[in-house]
């Protein structure tokens, strides 16, 4: 915890010292931007920052939250893992909470939403209503055009979204500008980006081991609707980020059938 505070302080300290450069590109991150621009990649990450407590009191009414069992981290305060695979306009997004994963596969204009559960050591995939066949829903581009692409939770969507080409980011979202780069005592290097708007400020640091992206850390401050200053941090450990889509993820998992909308 102390180390995380130090990191947040270091990231913010870097911004008070650096003059912002409005440069679009920055060496090591370019390789990753290109993978996202080409839409050919596999990303595997772990969010190691526990989610904030959402409720204003520790007890939570179970009947009210039953319908929200698909968002467990808000109530269990644990980190989670995830995966994003892209191949052109096909996409697989998974958010993994240990025994439970929320999955979405987009193939052409078919979107399949399903879950993975582990019970007594056995892994099964089912539709959200527990069936062995998932019926596709039609891809609705409207939401993505207006609000941006989703890669899982809002933190992950935002931090990976920083690397998307500008014509894929809706106007009105924070603009991240390159601030600077440097080396760390442990042999790693970093590149810093900053976004500031009327809503607040966010600093994002990309950590590299050589040219390999290993971590993304963000610290942000904003004012909520009631005028209170709210700070949050998010740290993603990157286990894999390569330009080769994992094709096994772009088809339905074992035991789960797909019912396409295409005739």
């Amino acid at each position, binding site marked *: 915890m102390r180390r995380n505070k130090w990191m947040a302080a270091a990231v913010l300290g870097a911004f008070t010292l650096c003059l912002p450069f409005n440069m679009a590109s920055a060496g090591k991150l370019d390789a990753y931007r290109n993978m996202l621009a080409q839409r050919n990649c596999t990303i595997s990450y772990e969010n190691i920052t526990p989610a904030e407590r959402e409720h*204003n009191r520790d007890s939570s*009414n179970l009947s009210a939250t039953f319908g929200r069992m698909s968002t467990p981290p808000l109530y269990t305060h644990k980190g989670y893992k995830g995966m994003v695979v892209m191949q052109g306009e096909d996409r697989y997004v998974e958010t993994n909470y240990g025994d439970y994963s929320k999955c979405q596969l987009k193939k052409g204009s078919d979107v399949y939403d399903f879950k993975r559960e582990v019970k007594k050591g056995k892994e099964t995939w089912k539709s959200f209503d527990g069936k062995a066949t998932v019926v596709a829903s039609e891809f609705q581009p*409207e939401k993505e055009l207006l609000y941006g692409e989703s890669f899982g939770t809002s933190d992950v969507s935002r931090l990976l979204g920083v690397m998307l080409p*500008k014509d894929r*980011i809706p106007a009105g979202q924070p603009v991240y500008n390159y601030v600077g780069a440097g080396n760390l005592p442990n042999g790693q290097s970093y590149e810093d980006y900053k976004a500031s708007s009327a809503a607040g400020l966010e600093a994002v640091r990309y950590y590299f081991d050589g040219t390999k992206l290993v971590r993304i850390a963000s610290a942000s401050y904003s004012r909520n609707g009631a005028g*209170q200053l709210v700070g949050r941090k998010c740290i993603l450990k990157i286990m894999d980020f390569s330009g080769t889509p994992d094709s096994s993820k772009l088809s339905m998992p074992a035991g789960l059938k797909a019912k396409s909308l295409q005739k």
Partner: protein
Amino acid sequence: MNWKKIVAGVFACGLMMGTVSAQQPAAAEYQNMLQQDFVLSYGYEGKTEKVRITGDAGKRMTAILQENLWYPKVLGTNDKIYQFYIEKVTKAKVLPLNMLGSDKLSPDEKWTEKKDRLALPEELAVLAWQDKWTSHPQSLGAPAFSGSSKRQVGSDEYDCDQYICDIRNQAGGVSGQLAYNLLYKDGKLVKAQKYLLYKGKQQLLSTLDIMEFKAGVDEGAISKLNDVKVYKAELGDINDLLDNPVEEGTMGGALNAQK
């Protein structure tokens, strides 16, 4: 000029059969109503919920139809927001508007979702883009009137006014467009349709059916709430822990105090 804009423009024209450059005369009246006082009730095709919104410059109330009766759901005034619920009888919870984003609020009370209930339906927001209860995605540009024409929907013919909003991206371009067709019959606005214009295709996203749309606020509906008891919103204090909501009086008292 952005080629996407040209293609989108061609498709916008393709949605109409002959263009005239002025809005329907009734459009100005509806725009006026939405800024002053009105009663609007509507439903979406394919959905069972029917909504009734009544309001004036100072307040707005939304009700939902259940078993042929309109049940109040949310009331917004100049400085407060009330949500109604049924616990044997109709009761209300109140929150000052300036506390809406506070982290002390209980997520179970869903105050932000309640406030969103006071918004005009998107298809009609083109007539009142600056409406204080209606918000728009930042990527969506303001509507531009793009022409009037005759339009066939099912077996009926309507006078159609079309408005187009650009969906903008950070590269400064237009990623797509939303087109809103407001359909009039005999001078009255009866339907509205929303289309997405994207990658050369047009996709119908929704059809709004208007049951009632007239000037004048429904004071009767609001005064019917006079005896409803009002409780404070949960703010994470000792009253929440004890499950003991604090009563603030009745709606009649609260609303009279507003005047």
